[in-house]
């Protein structure tokens, strides 16, 4: 080929490349921008020049069948390429992802989808990551899913080294990468963690008009909202709530509630509420307030029975299940319960949950048909569960009169006719110390006719019984009682009377509330769900966050948050050797056997 011919050919291919570049760019961008126009102009000019320079060849080609065939093939191939690029551009416009993985964590969780679908203002997400950052592809891919889901989300990936002015304008200074979300004049940052939870939480903080205020009841030995370490503390949930920009305030039911409270949380009170406090709580819900109540078996009996007025029946039993499919330890510890997603109720709180809820030592909480209250069971234990009255007995098993089968463990109530609710007129009088003492003696299995004026130690009662009596009395009354060596039942009764009077004096009588529809109440029969030790199990945290989101009316935040527990791979030395044998011996060996077979076949 002469140099002139080579130059002509090079010019021809340059024209084709420019035209292709224009087609690809336009298809991918979905518009013709300035650079696209320049490409098109250059392509047209170069191709026109080639046609002019090669006019003789073109004329010959028109006569030669082989050249005509080649030209046709080239044109058809180019046309097919353009069609393919256009078809791909169309598919990109309606792009979607199906996640075949078990955890589906390469697609957005239902919580994020709810938040994105609820966006009513445009959000710009600027991701500042250097081009060399190993985090950049993952973050870009994650943000792309947000942009694909919602037209209101606009994503910009910026290299802060290449665009320092943009980084300075938005105050991005982290060298490890940073996300800046802006909407109007509001701005949120994501630093350190760049997963779906972190991005969605920032989005929620950005678009929430104001913080939700959640009031956390204290004073009855509830789960401690500041404790992030012990298994019974509720600090982990509170941290998650604060990550969603909710304010968690302390509340005392003995005092009028802060009108700013959007939801009240009563997280497993060990000490029963005083009648006035219970009246305040019920009045709060009947007056349009929202409350989440978690109750442990055997505790807060007064509140448990009062909730019947709101359409919730709270049993005093413990729900047990010996079926290993619904209780991880089966008959060994039937109080551990697994509620798979299929056994969760059809309610906004539970609808988006994909994982199981794991409860431990729960009491039954069922719907009690009540005019004015629309109640729904949220979760049920397995079909072989039952409500055990004597969980501490040897080998508990369902007795004839104990309820069994799919025991309900939680209820959500919406007040639809507040005026129809049959709430008590005012707080019932506090039980007298003597009555409380007699009831408690019976409850702990001691004879009610014990002499009151003899030291307890002289009655031949075991120490454990005396301590149990004092502790149960303390939980029922909220009065701290210290057993004394020479103390009598009369001393206990007097101390109780004095303590009850002091406690009652601290309570501000509940103010009368006008009935108003729209109150919401969620009651769960296991306070342990909220503890740091259980919150990360299965969908427990999502259940509670959903319950609170439903209570404060943030329905767009309901759903399953992205979560994962990772996969362990526990290999014994034998297992590892077996894997090595399959990987390096068996499979290559089979292929080698094939080689020998083919060699012998050919030789034969």
């Amino acid at each position: 080929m002469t140099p002139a011919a080579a130059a002509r050919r090079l010019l021809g291919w340059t024209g084709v490349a420019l035209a292709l570049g224009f087609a690809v760019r336009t298809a991918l961008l979905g518009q013709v921008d300035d650079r696209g126009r320049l490409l098109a102009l250059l392509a047209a000019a170069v191709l026109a020049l080639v046609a002019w320079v090669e006019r003789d060849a073109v004329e010959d080609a028109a006569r030669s069948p082989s050249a005509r065939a080649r030209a046709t093939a080239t044109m058809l191939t180019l046309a097919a390429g353009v069609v393919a690029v256009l078809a791909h551009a169309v598919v990109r416009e309606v792009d979607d992802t199906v996640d075949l993985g078990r955890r589906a964590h390469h697609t957005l969780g239902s919580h994020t989808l709810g938040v994105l679908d609820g966006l009513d203002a445009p959000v710009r997400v600027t991701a500042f990551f250097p081009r060399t950052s190993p985090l950049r592809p993952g973050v870009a891919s994650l943000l792309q899913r947000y942009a694909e889901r919602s037209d209101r989300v606009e994503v910009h990936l910026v290299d802060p080294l290449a665009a320092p002015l943009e980084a300075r304008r938005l105050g991005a200074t982290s060298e490890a990468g940073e996300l800046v979300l802006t909407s109007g004049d509001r701005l949120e940052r994501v630093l350190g963690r760049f997963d779906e939870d972190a991005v969605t939480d920032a989005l929620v903080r950005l678009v929430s008009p104001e913080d939700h205020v959640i009031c956390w009841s204290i004073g009855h030995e509830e789960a401690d909202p500041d404790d992030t370490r012990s298994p019974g503390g509720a600090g982990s949930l509170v941290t998650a709530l604060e990550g969603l920009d909710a304010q968690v305030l302390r509340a005392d039911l003995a005092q009028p509630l802060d009108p700013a409270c959007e939801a009240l949380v009563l997280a497993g009170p060990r000490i029963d509420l005083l009648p006035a406090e219970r009246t305040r709580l019920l009045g709060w819900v009947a007056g349009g307030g929202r409350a989440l109540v978690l109750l442990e078996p055997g505790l807060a009996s007064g509140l448990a029975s009062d909730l019947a007025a709101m359409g919730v029946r709270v049993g005093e039993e413990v729900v047990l299940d010996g079926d290993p499919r619904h209780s991880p330890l089966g008959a060994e510890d039937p109080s551990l319960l697994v509620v798979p997603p299929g056994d969760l109720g059809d309610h906004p709180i539970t609808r988006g949950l994909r994982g199981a809820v794991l409860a431990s030592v729960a009491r039954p909480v069922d719907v009690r048909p009540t005019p004015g209250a629309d109640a729904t069971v949220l979760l049920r234990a397995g079909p072989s569960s039952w409500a055990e009255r004597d969980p501490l007995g040897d080998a508990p098993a369902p007795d004839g009169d104990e309820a069994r089968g799919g025991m309900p463990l939680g209820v959500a109530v919406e007040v639809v006719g507040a005026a129809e609710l049959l709430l008590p007129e005012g707080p019932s009088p506090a039980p007298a110390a003597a009555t409380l003492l007699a009831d408690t003696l019976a409850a702990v299995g001691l004879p009610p006719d014990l002499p009151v004026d003899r030291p307890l130690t002289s009655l031949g009662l075991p120490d454990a019984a005396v301590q149990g009596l004092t502790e149960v009395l303390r939980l029922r009354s909220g009065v701290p009682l210290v057993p004394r060596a020479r103390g009598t039942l009369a001393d206990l009764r007097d101390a109780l009377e004095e303590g009850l009077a002091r406690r009652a004096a601290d309570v501000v009588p509940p103010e009368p509330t006008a009935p108003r529809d729209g109150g919401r109440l969620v009651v769960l029969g296991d306070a342990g769900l909220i503890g740091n030790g259980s919150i990360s199990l299965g969908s427990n945290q999502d259940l509670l966050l959903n319950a609170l989101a439903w209570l404060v009316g943030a329905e767009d935040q309901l759903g399953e948050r992205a979560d994962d527990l990772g996969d362990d791979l526990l290999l014994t030395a034998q297992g590892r050797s077996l894997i090595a044998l399959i990987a390096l011996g068996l499979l290559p060996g089979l292929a080698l056997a094939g080689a020998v077979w083919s060699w012998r076949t050919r030789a034969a």
Partner: protein
Amino acid sequence: MSRVLAVAARDLRVQLRTPAGWLALAAIQALAGLFWLMLVDGYVERRADLVFDPYAAARTTLADHLVAPYLGNVAVLLLVLGPAVTMGALAEERRTGRSELLLTSPLRPAELVAGKALASLGWVALVLAGTAVLPLALGAWAPVDLGALAGGYLGLGLLGAVVVGVGLLCSAVTDRQVVALLLAYVVLMALWVVGWLDRDPTSLPSQLSLSAHLRDLLRGAVRRSDLSYLLLLTGWTLFATWQRVRTWRHA
């Protein structure tokens, strides 16, 4: 259709009756096995190291941190060894003059190309089936995410189809096997690494890149645009090969 199958069966038979084909398969299996073993050891160590980092541990899953990297390695093996299978498919036919014989027979160019592609895909399927044994066998020790694995193998199958398409096109444009092999390597490697220029998934380099379109697929996330890219690229290369073979009649 029967003529397509006849061409495919003949080519596959030739490949399977050649010790070189089996040796290549053994080499792939041995390399894949070695990668697998290293990844398994790495995963076990990594999980042990993460005992005190529950956040990172929660995000370390078999599907993402063992199976997906392994499938990534298998993808590279396909890129390296695939063109070796297709290099002679058309170039050799042309060099030996068998192509003229074939094209003067009732066999149409499209049928010839489809048969050759089917035979090469059969070989790819054999390779993939062999490599799938390892993650499946892991199920004896840990919960293997079969959905993610299926998504990953869908991606590898489509990558295999692209490799076959590009390999056949390169084999059709020259009558020298070595040139076809090198050409296919250049094209496939360019398509593989172009995404490294800009890792933003919406950028033009990423949109053109094979590796960018495979990344989510290998983790079980099947994106419509990834499927479209791989299918359209395969379709276009086979179409171009067909057009190229059609011109042989007039050569």
